[in-house]
């Protein structure tokens, strides 16, 4: 479940909207990076590789949006901050699990893409600025494409071995 605070969607300017989009991607990039580190520490290299790949993708999107923002608005100070959003596209902290399989990691990413899509869908009726609406529609559609790509990757994976990763969580895995 994503949350935002203090964002007046009705009066969001295009600059604010681009800043918001950049911050959403930044948060997702950082969270995937955190998850990759967690998986590396816990000797789960396949999930770590996938999360790092996702972090790279989010950074690519962030950089594209940041470039657009710079082109349109230069270095005008931002009014939107990270304190105004949480878990929009970033997987939630409790999506990470010890001994996550690659399939579990992809499913977590899929849920995050679905969550981001829902965010843009829910925000759209509240937007009044046409350019902001167009941007949000574009971002919403990108989330659909991301879901499709994750699903393609999921379909390539062999089936899960049939055990619950949490069944191993009683072992002293962390310490």
């Amino acid at each position: 479940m994503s949350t935002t605070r203090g964002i007046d969607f009705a009066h969001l300017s295009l600059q604010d909207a681009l800043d918001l989009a950049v911050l959403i991607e930044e948060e997702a990039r950082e969270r995937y990076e955190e998850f990759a580190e967690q998986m590396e520490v816990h000797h789960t290299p396949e999930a770590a590789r996938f999360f790092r790949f996702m972090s790279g993708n989010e950074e690519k999107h962030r950089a594209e949006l940041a470039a657009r923002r710079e082109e349109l608005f230069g270095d005008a100070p931002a009014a939107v901050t990270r304190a105004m959003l949480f878990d929009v596209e970033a997987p939630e902290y409790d999506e990470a699990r010890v001994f996550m399989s690659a399939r579990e990691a992809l499913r977590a990413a899929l849920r995050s893409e679905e969550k981001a899509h829902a965010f843009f869908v829910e925000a759209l009726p509240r937007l009044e600025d046409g350019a902001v609406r167009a941007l949000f529609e574009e971002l919403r559609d990108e989330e659909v494409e991301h879901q499709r790509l994750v699903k393609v990757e999921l379909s390539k994976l062999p089936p899960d071995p049939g055990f619950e990763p949490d069944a191993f969580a009683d072992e002293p895995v962390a310490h």
Partner: protein
Amino acid sequence: MQATAPVCAPKDFKSDLKPIWCPGCGDYGVVQAIYRALAAVGRLPHEIAFISGIGCSSRIPGYTTAYGFNSVHGRALPIAQGIKMANPDLLVLAAGGDGDGFSIGGGHLPHAIRRNPDITYIVMDNQIYGLTKGQLSPTSPKGLHTVTSGYGSLENPVNPLMYVLSYGAPFVAQGTPADLPGLAEMIEEAIRYPGFAFVNVQSPCVTYGEEEQQIKAHKASMKRLSELGHDPSELIRALDVSQAYGTELHTGVVYRNPAPPPTFEALVRARQQELAPRALPPERILDLFLQE
């Protein structure tokens, strides 16, 4: 609204040491909230001392670039107070779990509160002993089945909020990593408060914790005090809200004494200044000692 550039960014407070908490642990969110709060406060890492006890959550100072001491079980507060007395200019944080803070370290908490040093104490309250594999902790709910309560706990839990308010803590807040921005703001406010500030963070244990205490459940059940019209300047209201600990998850500032009492450091400085005119010169003290 205008965003201001802090001296350090949150990432500047992240150390190279990788956390080894279980994936899904609430403490990952807590450490991120601390990075943000420290960046917002605007102090440099070398101006901060971060002291902890023992337990999963007590690893937290190592994951920051501040000076840190992962000390002795239950002894974060005495050490933090000593550091604050020796160098009052340091921003001093103490942290630990509910077992560390309310059980073995429980005796130190009232004394820290009554002295009122300018320290922020963050407890990552997961209602279980996680590091030692799932025993009852001081805040475990009554009836909880654990490896040390196979038929369900017979004990009432400690209520951390009532506990610290009863001893006179001037700043008391409660948060959850399910609301990371809110938690970061609360920790920032606690740090800025001039006196002993207590932040109880309900930080889920993903391995031994109950399903209804996980982040998803927190997101669904938490109630922000600011949205309930709570006035944190009223102690009676704060005590009232605190009674719901364990049944409802209230987040935000529970109590903020609007007239902060003097800190222990300030009282000590005042006493030193008062006695300074009567102080003997160091060589005279040595003479007296040798004469004895």
